[in-house]
């Protein structure tokens, strides 16, 4: 079975490296971007089964990227990570099409169980 591909968009280098290494160690392929512009290039050129998005990025926010992801990869579930624990923000990103929003910090074993669940639910992301 082909390795599942995760697109990770996060401007904090430590978080990006940590999540990337963790999921690669669990057999995933991870394509990482540090801002919206790099994320858009990845979306246009590559395939992805699932997207993990930081809400606040240096050149935009998650809702804009969610719309683009839904257009290019309609089957890929989207997880939004945010440093703002806000019910309004969670409702906003879910209304835009994100499957779930999580408040940082998140235990990566928990994040992985959500990733596994979402990929199991929608096996054909690409």
């Amino acid at each position, binding site marked *: 079975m082909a390795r599942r591909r995760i697109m990770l968009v996060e401007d904090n280098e430590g*978080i990006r490296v*940590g999540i990337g290494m963790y999921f690669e160690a669990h057999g995933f392929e991870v394509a990482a971007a540090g801002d919206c512009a790099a994320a858009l290039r990845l979306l246009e050129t590559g395939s992805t089964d699932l997207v993990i998005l930081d809400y606040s990025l240096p050149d935009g926010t998650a809702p804009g990227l969610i719309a683009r992801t839904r257009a290019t990869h309609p089957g890929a579930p989207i997880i939004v990570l945010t440093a703002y624990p806000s019910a309004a923000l969670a409702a906003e990103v879910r209304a835009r099409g994100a499957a779930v929003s999580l408040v940082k*910090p998140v235990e990566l074993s928990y994040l992985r169980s959500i990733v596994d669940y979402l990929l199991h639910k929608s096996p054909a992301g690409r």
Partner: protein
Amino acid sequence: MSDNREPNSSAQLLEIVERAAQAWRRTFDAMDCLVLTADPDGVVQRVNRTALSLLGGRFEDWLYRPLSELPDQLPWSEVKKLVDEARADGSPHRSQVGTDRVWELSCTGFGPNNDFCVVWARDITETVELHRAVIRSQAMSAMGQLLAGVAHEVRNPLFAITALLDAWALQPGVQETPFLPMLRKEVTRMRQLMEELLEYGRPYNPELVAGELRDVAAEAMTILKPAADERRLTFQIDVSGSVKMDRVRMLRVFLNLLQNAIDHSPDGGLVELESRLQTDAHPHVLEIAIRDNGPGFTGEDLPRVFDPFYTKRQGGTGLGLPIVQRIVEEHGGTVTAGNHADGGAVLRLRFPAIEAVGPARA
């Protein structure tokens, strides 16, 4: 009081004077602050009904007695002091005294033509408490905004550390090092502190809805049951009544109080949580008391248990009870800490009740 009729006989004049005197006495007695008049020799000339209810006894027990015979506690000690000052310089004097019970007093002074001075005093404890609560609320609001901003900046680096630790733990040989559990413990503590600080500084939610305290207590108990079972603790819970609440915040109150009781109880101990409706106040007051049979609070700890970061428990953040106090005050209530006569700590919460509780013991 005024009377516009021109008196045309001494009988009429006497009637007018008598009526004016009655009006003066009724006014004097109707005042809910205590009023006392004294002559320049420091002898009591009049006391009103409020003053008498505080002094006890009959009017004649206190009239024409020297002020020095008044009781030595507040507010009388301060009444004597103000009159003495007025006798010394003739001027008016005012003061505010007391800590647990706060009194505001004023003495008119004597002046060149006055043959007596008037002293009034009133218990302003509630007003002072309210004023302190408003100041605390304003400070908390500013702190809440600051904390929310800081929390965002802390969440990202904290998540970077935990994510890198999670990733590092998967590398060969790392699990055998002692550093990983130590680092995780410290990071968990930092995270707990951040979450508690945020909880402490969370902005006030003005949209409170009626909720049953029994349900909140039951939910808290379900969450804490594993911790309680581990210590073989018995919980005796008898809570009823409803108050206007932010349910999530109220759950935090019960979680913190029950967790505190668990932490301080001996193994196999008993924790009691019960409610009581007090109907002598309006609105009625719903009192919740939680008691453990641990060592209780020491005399040194008692005045400081609601101070943020005051803790002697290993690993504690010292924010558990301050969070309780903050949330309870947001709900228009109060919280006090003390020790039970038979031992153990008792925390008492008092909320304005919105309806009668069923089986509560009034």
